[in-house]
């Protein structure tokens, strides 16, 4: 193991004076590596604290660009980094915080083809992604490579925290064998998230990662912690290893990462449904063409911004309320950014409706057609 330099001894003084860490523990941190999956809300405090604590090699995998709407919670980035790569922005900040640690950037999407090789290069994996497909991929690749997963996830005002994939401990599939079908659980971009929440959960992931490296305390394995910011409460639940788990049991059926996008139903359909631009929509409205403009967002979003003349049926209500729509009419469907409306179009077409999606949703409408409609 590489020794600590004089400058490092000075920097990590508050660790060195605790017997649970001490110079030996700090050397362990220096010689350890953690892969942060995602440089967003959870990845921000996670990577910052790991770097500050002196974890010698920190990898980050992400392929996104910093957006203004990220800054409400993604504190590793700043206003000047809007429009630039999240990885470049994170590296700059982490190097500024601690020049003694090395930051490795993986600008790519985590896939079943690259996950195992990438994970093998790190001691601990910290999952801070934002979708079920990647979460199952991270879990399975952790089990397959024997790497522990410091897991955190967030939604609106709630967080979940655990450590999966320890020997004899459960994995994420023991807790949730299958992901929800697409469309049933909204993402943070659709449902919102309290900006401070990932600060709480990501920081706790960093604590678990440090404990795993140092071998101190009791890792959060076999336990799921639930955080409720509104109640300001924590609850600890037991998670047992599933003896029939498809990935971490003695006779697993999954022996290599599978095609998670298909598994989670996220794979794009080869035949795409009809789609128009917001400009097309504007010209249809101007020409007073006959059609129903269907908005599938939630009522509170409708209050913030709407396109005049639209009919509101939230996506989740469509299965029970689609009968209210005239089957002979042409339907033009929009949401905030085009994702939920694409699902609605797919659903309505299966029910025999002539439905068309509006690409980019009301945000694109505000951008390109009517700036008086607020973006959110």
């Amino acid at each position, binding site marked *: 193991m590489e020794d600590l330099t004089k400058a490092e001894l000075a920097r990590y003084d508050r660790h060195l004076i605790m017997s649970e860490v001490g110079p030996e523990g700090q050397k362990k941190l220096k010689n350890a590596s953690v892969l942060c999956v995602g440089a*967003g809300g*959870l990845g921000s405090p996670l990577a910052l604290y790991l770097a500050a604590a002196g974890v010698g090699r920190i990898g980050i995998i992400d392929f996104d660009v910093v957006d203004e709407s990220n800054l409400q919670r993604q504190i590793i980035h700043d206003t000047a980094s809007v429009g630039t790569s999240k990885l470049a922005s994170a590296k700059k900040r982490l190097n500024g915080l601690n020049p003694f640690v090395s930051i490795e950037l993986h600008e790519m999407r985590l896939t079943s083809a690259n996950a195992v090789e990438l994970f093998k290069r790190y001691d601990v994996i910290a999952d801070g*992604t934002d*979708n079920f497909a990647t979460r199952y991929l991270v879990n399975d690749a952790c089990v397959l490579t024997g790497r522990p997963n410091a897991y*955190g996830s967030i*939604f*609106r005002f*709630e967080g979940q925290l655990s450590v999966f994939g320890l020997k004899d401990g459960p994995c994420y599939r023991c807790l949730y064998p299958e992901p929800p079908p697409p469309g049933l659980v909204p993402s943070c971009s659709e449902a919102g998230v309290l900006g401070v929440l990932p600060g709480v959960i990501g920081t706790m992931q960093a604590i678990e990662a440090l404990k795993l490296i140092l071998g101190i305390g009791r890792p959060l394995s076999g336990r799921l912690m*639930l955080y409720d910011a509104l109640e300001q409460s924590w609850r600890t639940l037991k*998670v047992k290893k599933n003896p029939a788990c498809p990935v971490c049991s003695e006779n697993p059926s999954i022996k290599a990462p599978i095609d998670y996008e298909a598994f989670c139903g996220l794979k794009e359909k080869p035949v795409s449904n009809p789609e128009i631009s917001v400009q097309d929509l504007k010209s249809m409205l101007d020409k007073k063409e006959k059609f129903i403009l269907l908005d599938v967002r939630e009522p509170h979003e409708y209050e913030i911004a709407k396109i005049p003349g639209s009919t509101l049926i939230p996506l989740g209500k469509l299965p029970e309320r689609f009968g209210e729509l005239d089957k002979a009419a042409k339907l033009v469907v929009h949401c905030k950014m085009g994702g939920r409306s694409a699902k609605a179009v797919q659903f309505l077409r299966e029910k025999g409706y002539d439905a068309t999606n509006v690409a980019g949703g009301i945000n694109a409408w505000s951008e390109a057609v009517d700036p008086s409609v607020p973006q959110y």
Partner: protein
Amino acid sequence: MSIEIRLPTALRAFADKQEKIIVNGNSVGDSLNELFTTHPRLRQQLMTADGKLRSFVNVYINEDDARDKQGMATPVKDGDTIIIVPAIAGGI
């Protein structure tokens, strides 16, 4: 039997924004059925069409997963808390 059912924030919209609902039941299944009687929209959120708990929703009795006990038949007693824990994936 006074059983408290705790709902995650995502489901409170289907239960008049309440975070907890008190029911009277002798088992987990009983208690959930009473919940669905007063808040019918929760049934579709939590159960499949054939009456099974959805695979991404876990039900806990105090700190134990119902699956590790007797599932829906698990008996509950006065003062127990049933916690509904759906999978969440957000992170960015």
